[in-house]
């Protein structure tokens, strides 16, 4: 069963200079996929276009078979699209609880408190101090809150833009442990990452984007020896890369 399908997506900030240039792929329900690629390849722009934050100029995006191309971001949330931006992904002037309450507004009234409690169980760091301002959280805790917010509405697809950005190795481990737990509950995961090793440890399948186009779509294992990545990131053109 296809959860997310892109067909020939063109997107960017300026119609004359698209950053994503005709990308097609599908993600099955329950699958975890990471999107890799060098800086400036258009990974972030693509995921934002899917989430309704960047204009699409051509092609289409389907969520569970429904065409969602170009819908506003708040409409997509209601349709089961969860998105965690890379930076500024929580409201720092609101409390932790309020951040979750905003997201819970989309749920039926009787479910709200229960879902918030479930998130606090999943992220005890947040549950221990719900009335603190989110701005007081550390980098890793902010990512937790952002993920909890997106998960609260039980999205069909959860997309994250570089959840490891700016985190220490220990926190990266924690965040990816959390993502693994999330993935194991059956949520479809789409992940843009720079931290290739951590991402490949989590997902079965990897997409590599280069200059706005898909350069690789296949099992994540194929990338483990680092040859392709060495070429992409460090300019190695020969097979001894990564050895």
């Amino acid at each position, binding site marked *: 069963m296809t959860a997310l399908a892109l067909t020939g997506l063109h997107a960017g900030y300026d119609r004359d200079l698209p950053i994503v240039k005709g990308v097609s792929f599908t993600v099955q329900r329950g699958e975890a996929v990471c999107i890799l690629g060098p800086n*400036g390849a258009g990974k972030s722009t693509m995921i934002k276009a899917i989430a309704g934050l960047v204009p699409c100029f051509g092609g289409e995006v389907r969520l569970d078979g429904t065409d969602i191309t170009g819908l506003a971001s708040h409409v997509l949330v209601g349709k089961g699209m969860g998105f965690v931006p890379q930076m500024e992904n929580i409201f720092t002037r609101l409390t932790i609880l309020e951040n979750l309450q905003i997201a819970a507004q989309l749920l039926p009234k009787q479910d709200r408190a229960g879902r918030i409690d479930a998130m606090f169980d999943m992220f005890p760091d947040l549950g221990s101090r719900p009335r603190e301002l989110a701005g007081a959280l550390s980098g890793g805790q902010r990512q937790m809150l952002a993920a909890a917010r997106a998960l609260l509405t039980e999205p069909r697809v959860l997309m994250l833009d570089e959840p490891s950005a700016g985190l220490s190795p220990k926190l990266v481990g924690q965040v990816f442990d959390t993502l693994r737990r999330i993935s194991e509950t059956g949520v479809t995961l789409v992940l843009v990452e720079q931290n290739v090793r951590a991402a490949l440890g989590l997902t079965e399948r990897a997409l590599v984007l280069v200059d706005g186009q898909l350069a690789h779509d296949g099992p994540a294992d194929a990338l483990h020896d680092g040859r392709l990545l060495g070429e992409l990131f460090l300019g*190695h053109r020969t097979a001894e890369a990564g050895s």
Partner: protein
Amino acid sequence: MSQPSQPPILQARGLTKSFGGFRAVNDISLDLGTSEILGVIGPNGAGKSTLFNLLAGAVPIDAGSVHLAGVNLTHARPEARIKSGMGRTFQIPRPFPRMTVLENVMTSAQGQRGESLLSALIAPRQVAAQERANANRARDILDFVSLSHLEDQPASVLSGGQRKLLELARVMMADPRLILLDEPAAGVNPALLDLIIDRILAINRLGIAVLLIEHNMEMIARLCPRVIVMAAGKALAEGAPAEVTRRADVIDVYLEGMPA
């Protein structure tokens, strides 16, 4: 090209910058010889852009110092840095889109008398003479970056690569001693990439030092005798590009973003 015997043109010591609780740049020091090209590489999030912004004066420095040819620029505003001989380009070029290519370059001349409201009013002759001289110089520089044929066009018509060349021309017009280049290869098609690399080398041959932050390893390999690899805000390795990119710890940070 590195000449350790000469005093460095750029001396940065203990540069440190935190955002919130996050140390983006952590105690980085670097020296740049008077006619050296130094590359700074590293995975995304390593702090390269922040380092660039600290040197260019785009964000305030928490700790450390920056000296250009002995002049303390640690807290100088961007407009003061270029006057002291430190020029910069932008990763996404920022031409003045509705001004012509020639005007874009001329804007960047330093010490223009006509930029003072008073001189523009009371000394039109001197201003005109200086303008003619500047125009000629700007045209020479446009020749140098192969944009002469576009001098009367608004900058908005330029392609991505041409915009990068215009940025080079603009910064050259300011007569710098050091140019900070922020990803000059980003968004440039392969044909123009060769030209840009060639022009950077030519600029360097004029005795202008270049500090280059870049992801494109081909450009790094062709331009930089020496690179610094950044990871997690620190300098992880330093040396010739061919050597450092094969070090296991460098490959690790590229694949994991952090030193193991």
